[in-house]
């Protein structure tokens, strides 16, 4: 028996959505990107802008490696659509250095050896920048709790907390 397909391809397949223009200020530089609707902020930073300091860990908002600051607030860039951040100000680990000097948190992470493999470190540091800006963490328990969205598989947590305390002192926030 001749094989006849009952499944017909639609003559009018859904159009592939076009790229959308998104203007963002990334690390102080005004940038315009052409991205597909499904491009995450993480992929836009890494693949479109070559800012590979921000890491892709789980890609599901569970590890915090992709943490960046959007309009000064820490967010998971893997769960953020770039098209939704038109007009936003984004700061990544690459944007924390000012006039060649490391951010106090970057220096503190070095001073306290707050990492082993370093993969989670950009996310940890951006998250800690957000934490200090929030001004809610007043003791070690609160630092640990408010940093719980950043997983360190090497287990450098005690040194990460010590580094954040040092930076808080330096910046003038009493930990």
């Amino acid at each position, binding site marked *: 028996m001749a094989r006849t397909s009952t499944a017909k391809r639609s003559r009018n397949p859904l159009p592939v959505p076009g790229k959308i223009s998104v203007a963002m200020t990334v690390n102080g530089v005004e940038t315009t990107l052409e991205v597909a609707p*499904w491009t995450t902020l993480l992929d836009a930073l890494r693949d479109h802008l070559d800012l590979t300091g921000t890491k892709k860990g789980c890609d599901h908002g569970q590890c915090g490696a992709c*943490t960046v600051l959007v309009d000064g*607030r820490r967010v998971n860039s893997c*769960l953020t659509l770039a098209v939704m951040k038109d007009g936003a100000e984004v700061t990544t680990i690459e944007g924390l250095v000012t006039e060649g000097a490391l951010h106090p948190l970057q220096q503190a992470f070095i001073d306290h050896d707050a990492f082993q493999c370093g993969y989670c470190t950009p996310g940890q540091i951006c*998250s800690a920048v*957000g*934490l200090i800006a929030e001004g809610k963490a007043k003791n070690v328990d609160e630092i640990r709790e408010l*940093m719980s*969205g950043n997983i360190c598989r090497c287990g450098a947590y005690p040194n990460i907390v010590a580094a954040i305390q040092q930076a808080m002192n330096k910046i003038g926030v009493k930990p």
Partner: protein
Amino acid sequence: MINFQYARADDVADAVRRISADPTAKFIAGGTNLIDLMKEDVERPSRLIDISRLPLKSVEETADGGVRIGALVPNSDLAWHPLIEQRYPLLSSAILAGASQQLRNMASTGGNLLQRTRCFYFYDTATPCNKRKPGSGCSAIDGINRISAILGTSEACIATHPSDMCVALAALEAKVHVAGPKGERVIAFNDFHRLPGNTPQLDTSLQPNEIVIAVELPAQNFSKNYSYLKIRDRLSYAFALVSVAAALELEGGTIKQARLALGGVAHKPWRDATAETALRGKPANQATFTHAADLLLRDAKGFAHNTFKIELARRSIVRALTQAAQATPQSQSDKKIR
């Protein structure tokens, strides 16, 4: 992720128009749950309607002494809003018990209400799940069900609702304001989330063409005697095995008014009128609390791996009510349970 179209809503009416015009579209606000589910191929919207720029971001006092929270207020802003911290500390505490600060910065009030279950099988598209694919079966009933429900389950679904915030909103008897093609309506919190029954694909009573615009808190805030106790496998950043929102109004040592809501145990934040009635007029002591816990759990039913939740819930209820009565609410940063 699948391909999809993207559009921005101009105002609430435009959002309702757009969602009514395309039944395969979905709203996106914070995106913390939806984008994750799209990456897992669980949600496959043809179009995302971005509502994140709508003017629903204020927290305001209402004429009758309550507070109205815009649907797009981020979870972190809400937890730390002075009105909420001072007048509804139970809500503030419950929000801070959930997710991570990054996620709370993104997640919206309305989205928190509408987040989907974290049942392993709902996420695993290789397995049957009545919630994801109606009629395909429930893999959890005879599968790995350690995290599953013990109250209000059905033969079709034993999933739990994952929110902490909603447990506090249930205890506080919040109201959900929604808008649709026919205008606005108000849904009592207890009627917003539903039990699975034969239609576990429906999490809430929100209609497909409706949008959550606000959550309203009544004046009664239980700001003196409350506690949100969350028990989980890790000390932070994990979903509840059992959580309890306890709120009391005391007169001397006697309970004048009591609210008790549980998370992690059912398809919705679980309240039980019989248990709350049993607390009223009684002395605030362990015997009273244990009796209420026994009543609340009278129909609890465990599965192969989660029977422990029944005793865990009993003890958590007694502990949370004790913390509330003593005005020593559970800290969400110092994890010692006292």
